[in-house]
C-alpha cells in the first residue's frame, strides 16, 4: 500500500511539475495564433522528454552518479565545457523567466506590479532551497501545480466543437494570417519548451539526491511514462483554451494576464483562483528546479561537493552558485525587461542547446563501463537516434527562423 502511494504521488508530482512558464506562455501563444494547428508538436516533445528523462534517471540509478559528472568523465573537460556553457546559459534564462513568472502570477492575484514581487520571489526560492527538504519541496509544488487542471476543466466548460478540434489537430493547416516560417518558428519553440534541458539534469540529480538504485527503475519509468504525458495534456488544454476563446477574437497572447482569459470565460472567479494558484506553484516549482540545476551542473562539472541532502556548510560552492544565479536572474528582470519576452527567447534558446544536452546522455546510456547490463536496448537507441535528428534539425533551424520571422512576429 505504501509502495502504491509512493508511485501515485510520484506520478501526480510529475503531472503537476511538468508545466512551467515556458509551457504556459508558448502554448497559449500558439493556441491563440494557430488554433490546434501545432497540437502535434506537444506529443512529439513529450515523447522526447520521456525518452531522455527516463535515460538520465536510469544512468543515475545504475551508476549512482548524476548525468553531468559522467558526461565530464566520458567526454573530457574540453568537450563537456561546451555542454556546460550552453546548458548553464539556457538554464539561467529559464531561472529568469520563472522568477518573472512567479512575480506575474502574484500580480494577477494582487494587482501589485511585478517589479516589487521579483526580489520577493527570488528570496523565497532561495529560502525554500536552503531550508525545505527535497522530497517535501518536490511533492508540494507538484501537487499544488495540479490546480492547473482547471485549464482542462475550462475547455469542457467552453463547450467547443470537438469534431472541428479533431480535424484541425489531425490535418493541421497554417492560418492565412500566418506565414510558414512563423509556423515552424513556433513549432521549434513549442518543442524547446517541452524538452527544456534543465528537466533532465534535475531528474538525474534528483535521483541521486533521493538515493535511487536499480530497484527504483520501475517506479521512475512509471513516473515518466505516465506523469509526463498527462502533464503534456495540460499543455494541450492551455493551447485549446486559447484556441477556443482568443483565436476567434484575433487576440494574440503577449502577457500572462491573457493566458488566464479562457479560464475566466469558462469558469469565472473560482476557476481563476485555481489557475493563479496553479501558475504560482508551477513557476515556483520550476524556479526551484532550475536554480538547483544551475548548482548541480556547475558543481558536478568541477567535481565540487553538491546536493540538497548535504548541509549548506558542507556544499558551500554549490549553494553560492545557486545564490549567484538567482541574483543574476532577478537583476536582469529588474532592468525592466519583459518576463514574457525572456520566456519566449528562453524556449527558443533551449531548442538551440538541445543537441549539446541530449547527445552526451545517449552516449553515456550506451556505455557498459557505467551502465553494465542496463545499457540502452536496440529499440531505445533507434528511437533516440530519430529524436537526435529532430533535435538537430530544430536546433539548426531556430536562429534562421528567429531572424526571418522577427522572433515570431
Amino acid at each position, binding site marked *: 500500500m505504501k509502495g502504491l502511494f509512493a508511485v501515485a504521488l510520484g506520478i501526480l508530482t510529475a503531472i503537476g511539475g511538468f508545466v512551467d512558464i515556458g509551457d504556459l506562455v508558448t502554448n497559449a501563444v500558439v493556441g491563440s495564433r494557430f488554433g490546434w494547428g501545432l497540437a502535434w508538436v506537444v506529443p512529439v516533445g513529450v515523447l522526447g522528454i520521456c525518452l531522455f528523462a527516463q535515460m538520465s534517471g536510469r544512468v543515475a540509478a545504475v551508476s549512482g552518479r548524476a548525468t553531468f559528472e559522467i558526461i565530464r568523465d566520458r567526454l573530457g573537460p574540453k568537450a563537456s565545457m561546451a555542454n556546460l556553457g550552453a546548458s548553464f546559459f539556457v538554464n539561467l534564462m529559464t531561472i529568469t523567466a520563472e522568477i518573472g513568472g512567479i512575480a506575474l502570477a502574484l500580480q494577477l492575484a494582487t494587482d501589485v506590479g511585478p517589479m516589487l514581487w521579483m526580489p520577493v520571489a527570488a528570496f523565497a526560492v532561495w529560502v525554500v532551497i536552503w531550508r525545505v527538504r527535497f522530497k517535501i519541496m518536490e511533492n508540494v509544488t507538484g501537487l499544488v501545480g495540479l490546480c492547473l487542471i482547471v485549464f482542462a476543466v475550462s475547455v469542457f466548460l467552453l463547450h467547443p466543437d470537438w469534431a472541428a478540434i479533431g480535424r484541425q489537430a489531425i490535418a493541421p493547416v497554417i492560418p492565412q494570417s500566418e506565414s510558414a516560417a512563423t509556423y515552424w518558428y513556433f513549432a521549434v519553440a513549442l518543442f524547446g519548451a517541452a524538452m527544456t534541458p534543465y528537466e533532465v539534469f534535475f531528474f538525474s540529480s534528483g535521483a541521486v539526491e533521493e538515493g535511487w538504485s536499480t530497484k527504483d527503475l520501475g517506479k521512475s519509468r512509471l513516473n515518466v511514462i505516465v506523469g509526463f504525458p498527462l502533464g503534456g495534456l495540460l499543455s494541450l488544454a492551455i493551447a485549446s483554451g486559447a484556441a477556443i476563446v482568443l483565436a476567434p477574437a484575433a*487576440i494574440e497572447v*503577449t502577457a500572462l494576464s491573457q493566458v488566464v482569459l479562457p479560464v475566466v470565460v469558462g469558469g469565472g472567479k473560482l476557476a481563476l483562483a485555481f489557475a493563479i494558484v496553479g501558475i504560482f506553484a508551477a513557476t515556483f516549482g520550476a524556479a526551484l528546479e532550475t536554480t538547483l540545476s544551475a548548482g548541480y551542473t556547475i558543481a558536478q562539472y568541477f567535481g565540487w561537493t553538491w546536493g540538497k541532502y548535504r548541509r549548506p556548510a558542507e556544499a558551500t560552492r554549490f549553494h553560492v552558485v545557486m545564490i549567484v544565479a538567482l541574483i543574476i536572474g532577478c537583476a536582469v528582470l529588474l532592468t525592466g525587461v519583459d518576463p514574457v519576452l525572456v520566456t519566449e527567447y528562453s524556449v527558443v534558446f533551449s531548442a538551440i542547446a538541445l543537441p549539446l544536452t541530449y547527445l552526451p546522455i545517449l552516449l553515456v546510456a550506451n556505455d557498459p563501463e557505467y551502465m553494465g547490463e542496463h545499457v540502452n536496448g536496440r529499440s531505445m537507441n533507434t528511437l533516440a537516434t530519430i529524436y537526435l535528428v529532430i533535435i538537430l534539425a530544430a536546433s539548426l533551424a531556430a536562429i534562421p527562423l528567429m531572424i526571418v520571422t522577427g522572433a515570431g512576429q
Partner: protein
Amino acid sequence: MARRPPWRRIRSAAVIVIAVPAAGFLLHGCPSIRDGMAGQLAQAQKESESAVTTGSLALDLWRNHKSTNQLAAVQLSDAGDEVTKAYKGIATLTADNAADLRQQRTLTAAMTDAITALNAAGALVRGVGTDDSPDAARQRLIAAVAQLQSANS
C-alpha cells in the same frame, strides 16, 4: 611566425563565402527590412487591435462579475502597455511617401485614443475617480477597436 596551413585558409574562405551571403539573405528576410514601413504599420495595428480587444473582453468579464478587480486591472494595464509599445515602434518611423505618412498619422491618432480608453477603463476598475459607467467604458473600447481597424483600410 608560423604560417597557417593552406587547408585552414581554404576553410576560412569557404566559411566567409557561405556565411556572408547566408547572413545577408536572412537579414533581407527580417520583417522590418522585408516589409518596409507599411508592414511595420500593419504589424503595430494588429498588435494594438489585439490588445484593445483583450481590454474589452477583460472589462466585459469584470462587468459581469466573472473576473476580479485585480485581474481586470492588470489585463487593462497590460493592454495599455502593449499599445504604447506598438505606438513607440511606429511614431519615429520616417515615411517616404504620402500614403505611409497619412496612415501613420491615422494609426497613431487611433492608438492615442485607444490608450486613453484603456486608461479610463483601468481607472474605473480600480475605483479611481471617473465619471464613466462600465457600459460607457466598454463602448469606448469597442469604438477604439473599430477606429484601429479603419486606420488600416
